[in-house]
């Protein structure tokens, strides 16, 4: 396996042209998958020396721009009124939060992860950049399925844009132990209700989609029937916290 740690995005794009090259962000999922023998990249392109991917900026309109290499711990330290800060606070454990990054989590798109559902409710946009262009993809189009995103080959997640938040937000997660991936998670902000952990990609509930109509997943954490049964209560609790 080759390893390179470029200091600019341009170098990173060149390094990613190799077949089977992958980005290494915080490594908290990718290295675990490598250890388990689930992936064996030919080349790793470490993003940790690229300064432009770091940091949190407050936008003029009151929103946030989170650089892709911003860690969960840095996001958890934001004011807890922010939905994304609430999600980061219950994401895994201190050692994972110190190194895991939002860009890595978003690109991995685990259906039971905390950010995808929170970003969907927050109407966030995922900024992705390639050697040719940068584009912003709304969260509802970015998360396509089980570990599947709208990222094209050669593109890197470079930032997350979260619009200004009016009013209270709440994030609730049901998990086997504190910090584990969700059996069911619910994010609510400005009347939008998003559900995670239940379907291959998080879903926004609305006129066409209600909680009862979801096709629930069966996995090692819980059965579809269990998820169907507990989801209404988790939604009720989350919505109540926003009132």
């Amino acid at each position, binding site marked *: 396996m080759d*390893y390179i740690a470029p200091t600019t995005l341009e170098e990173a794009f060149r390094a990613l042209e190799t077949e089977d090259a992958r980005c*290494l962000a915080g*490594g908290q999922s990718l*290295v*675990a*998958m490598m250890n388990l023998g689930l992936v064996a990249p030919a080349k790793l392109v470490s993003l940790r020396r690229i300064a432009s991917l770091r940091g949190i900026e407050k936008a003029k309109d009151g929103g946030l721009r989170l650089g892709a290499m911003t860690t969960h711990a840095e996001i958890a330290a934001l004011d807890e009124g922010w939905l994304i800060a609430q999600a980061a606070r219950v994401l895994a454990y*201190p*050692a994972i939060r110190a*190194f895991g990054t939002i860009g890595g989590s978003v690109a991995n798109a685990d259906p039971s992860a905390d950010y995808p559902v929170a970003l969907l409710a927050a109407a966030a946009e995922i900024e992705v950049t390639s050697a040719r262009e940068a584009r912003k993809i709304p969260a509802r189009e970015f998360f396509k399925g089980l570990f599947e995103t709208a990222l094209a080959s050669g593109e890197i997640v470079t930032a997350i844009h979260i619009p200004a938040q009016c009013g209270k937000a709440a994030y609730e997660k049901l998990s086997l132990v*504190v910090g584990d991936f969700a059996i069911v998670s619910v994010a609510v902000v400005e009347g939008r209700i998003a559900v995670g952990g239940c379907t291959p990609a998080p879903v926004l509930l609305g006129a066409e989609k209600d909680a009862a109509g979801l096709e629930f997943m069966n996995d090692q954490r819980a059965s579809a029937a269990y998820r169907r049964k507990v989801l209404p209560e988790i939604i009720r609790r989350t919505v109540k916290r926003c009132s």
Partner: protein
Amino acid sequence: MLLNVNGEERDLAATPAATLLEALRAGGLTGSKRGCNHGVCGACTVLLDGKLARSCLALAVDVGERPVVTVEGVSESGLSEVQKALVETGAIQCGFCTPGFVMALTELFLRRAAPARDEIRAALSGNLCRCSGYVKIVEAAEKLAGGKR
């Protein structure tokens, strides 16, 4: 590969895909334990750049210049305060998870002189003890914190 471990430069032999845990253990620093090897159990916990880290989830090659502290490096001589508190409280059963708990508590007490029970429990949330000795471990940390109030 040169790594800064416990305040000294060490030349550790490691393949490009080796984790920091593998490099440390191959270099004779076997205090960090390989439990689950995918970031769940916390037995391999070290300090990386002053922050609590899973050494099984860091690639040795990606550590670079950042300093590493392992359980072998938590005190210059004898046992550290945290280690003494664990011994005095009897907060050890089989001992496999203990190096990870020592690192988690070491990081906590570096950050907070006298942490409250909730903070202790939160700091230990990423470390598993399969003998289920959490009660004594939390008690040891509370005693250490109490002595500093």
